[in-house]
């Protein structure tokens, strides 16, 4: 297959950036999107040009490293899939493909298609955990958890942290990311002691990082490779209101 690629090139965070056009040829339909970029890069290096920087690692859809904005969609034309799991047979021979980084104010560009997503780590730092020290846990079976609860919690916990939800959102909101963690832990009994403080702190941090607000378009859930359900956001809203408006039953 043959493709024309319009690729965003940006030397560093200060550089304004621009599109460059490249041609690639002889691409197998079974090559992954990232392997197609590998081929382009080998060609660029041999021609004495700078290869295109892009994030990747596991290349099987779980590490959350990769993330390209392809033809106007986070992770490309297919729903609920990472860029690394996108194959060239999903494109038309001869097609022009536009490739950009995930764009959001809290994601500064590092180079070309690589952005800094550490804002997401800071949201987790604000409270996305159960405060339990190693060594103090009771026996694992001392607390039964209904199977449907554990299964539902897993649906939320499956988030891979790729940040596509932010890129897909017209408001660059990180609601789905934050909500996935809040919903997961608010369902699990282990998450109860910090349930109120967790949601307040995580939402506060989300705002501090400059992510936008949610207007319930659902664009995030369409792209989410981990298929985190949109109900996570409803849960987050409920948890937030409960924590913000109702009196704390344990307050002194």
């Amino acid at each position, binding site marked *: 297959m043959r493709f024309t690629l319009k690729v965003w090139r940006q030397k560093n965070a200060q550089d304004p950036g621009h599109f460059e056009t490249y041609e690639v040829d002889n691409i197998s339909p079974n090559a992954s999107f990232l392997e197609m970029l590998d081929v382009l890069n080998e060609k660029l290096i041999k021609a004495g040009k700078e290869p295109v920087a892009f994030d990747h690692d*596991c290349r099987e859809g779980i590490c959350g*490293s990769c993330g390209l904005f392809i033809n106007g969609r986070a992770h490309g034309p297919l729903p609920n899939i990472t860029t690394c*799991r996108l194959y060239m047979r999903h494109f038309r021979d001869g097609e022009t493909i536009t490739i950009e980084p995930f764009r959001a104010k809290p994601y500064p560009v590092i180079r070309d298609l690589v952005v800094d997503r550490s804002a997401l780590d800071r949201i987790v730092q604000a409270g996305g955990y159960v405060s339990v020290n190693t060594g103090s*846990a009771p026996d694992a079976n001392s607390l039964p958890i209904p*199977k449907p609860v554990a299964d539902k919690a897993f649906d939320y916990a499956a988030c891979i942290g790729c940040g596509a939800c932010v890129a897909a959102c017209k408001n660059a909101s990180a609601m789905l990311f934050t909500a996935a963690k809040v919903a997961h*832990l608010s369902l699990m009994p282990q998450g109860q002691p910090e349930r109120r403080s967790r949601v307040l702190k995580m939402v506060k941090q989300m705002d501090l990082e400059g992510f936008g607000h949610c207007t319930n378009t659902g664009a995030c859930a369409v792209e989410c490779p981990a298929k985190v359900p949109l109900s996570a956001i409803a849960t987050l809203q409920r948890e937030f209101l409960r924590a913000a408006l109702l009196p704390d039953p344990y307050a002194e």
Partner: protein
Amino acid sequence: MSTTTIESPVITTPSVITWREGDPITNSKAPSGDLSTRWARHKDSLRLVAPHNKRKLEVIVVGAGLGGASAAASLGELGYQVKVFVYHNSPRRAHSIAAQGGINAAKNYRNDGDSIWRLFYDTIKGGDFRARESNVYRLAEVSVKIIDHCVAQGIPFAREYGGLLDTRSFGGAQLMRTFYVRGQTGQQLLLGAYAALQRQVALGNAKVYHNHEVLDIVVEDGRARGIIVRNLITGEIHRVAAHAVVLATGGYGNAYFLSTNAKLSNATATWRAHRRGAYFANPSFVQIHPTCIPQSGEYQSKLTLMSESLRNDGRVWVPRKAGDPRPPHQIPEEERWYYLEEWYPSYGNLVPRDIASRAAKRVCDMGYGVGPTGRAVYLDFSDAIKRLGREVIYQRYGNLFEMYEEITGESPWETPMRIYPAVHYTMGGLWVDYNLMTNIEGLYAIGEANFSDHGANRLGASALMQGLADGYFILPYTIGDYLATQLFVKLSTETAAFEDAERETKARIQRVLSGKGTRTVDEFHRELGKILWDHCGLARNAEGLTQAFQQIRALRERYYKEVLVPGTGQEFNQNLEKALRVADFLELGELMITDAYHREESCGCHLREEYQTPEGEPLRNDEKYAYVAAWEWKGENEPPVLHKEPLTFEFVKPTTRSYK
């Protein structure tokens, strides 16, 4: 151990692969006496550091996979000052995240007779008697605490309808001791450790440096004193000092270029530690997984693992006529060669991993392979679908069929899968004592980065167990014993050792950047991978290894002349990162070959073709090779020195592994 070395003369036959034999390793610090109380007694003998003193001690943790993140979180909780360095853009991206199957623990929740002893026994035997009894027993012992802790973190483990934890069987074990979280156990356990680490970051006990790659280990007077690290975004080189350094940098399967490992996984930190004096143990012990999606073209960047459970219902075959161009469904039954069923009538398609892998290679070497590259065999479900119906097969393998179709564009419902073995895990790694300390004082290696508890072959669902055992429940105790001696050490990066290490690192960077060649780093890496795969993969022999050694050495010489790395060192430069990693793989490759060559026996998943029965069963040689081969670096193009740590088996008598 690192003191005087009495060296025997260079071993000269045959002349190409050479090494010297040094002193044996006699003090692994493994306790003696009653097996079940060894760890408890050892813990009680370790020195402690008082809480107010812990704050004064700094520990560097390199890598944040299961081992690194759990260690960093636990050390932070104890009150040490922890600095974590990861080359990823977040500590949540480490390759532990890709582990699917599960984590073993001797909980005996099933009432099926599991015990610490049984998990210990299975692991020792599975490793084909090439691991320390003391270590493996401790691993089995702490396995139960791992599950308790991970549940307390809120990880949504699979549960029964009664609300208690579900388990399943795995990899030939006769017990159901594998805990799991759907098909994403590694991800959930890693996110648990990651979250625990983030909590320590929020509390100010730990600091994470993302996009930072460790390029050297600084050793002063035989002690680890810090690291040289490159900020991958700006290209700046920094010196960082600490009272102890923990390497949790994973395995080196990517030396083979194509493997199931994540693309960035590399051996640089462990290899640099090795060059600074740390012994590298059993480097040729590499696990190869039989059921992976084969390479479909030269462009391919990695191989994807398919669960081994597929062999329960799939039949493996190739066309009887080599190079048969017909699509599989047009090949009549009598022209299909079910070679596993023919060669191994009693086990058929369910022979162990290593046998299945080698048989696939053998038929492909004979020219019977299928697919565009001829390096694949069919795994056919049509009989099972006829026998059991679509519904049953869907229940068992639906998600795997979908994954296969997504990657290959072919539906296993319509046409047989194509599979081929791939490199998956490395049992070898830095040599460590019972305290997980390398032979360099204050330098620790945990998880897949150490030579580990898996001997010559790792059992399924044991990698997650070992990573978390090391990080949560072993290192936090043992490191205190060393740190207690470091309380009054004033840290400084203005020393000759730091100076030298920084200068050498910059020279290495300059060396790969100054190549004025025409070939890309990946071209060299592919070539190295092919040499290793052909001669130091599934089956090895002296002649092939000798050839491979020469080829790698020649390749290494060409590398610096012919490689072309664009850009500079003072910017975000992914090709430079890759070039440095491949330079280290080229050196490690030689040591892997040397180790494979020196071990004149077939053990674990490694077949030395000269040592097998006429039926093709591996022949282990306990008399000569019941030891850990710990290699000491002596310089580029210098023969390494072999230190043997003898393995004694007081509790489990070595037996021949049999699948008949």
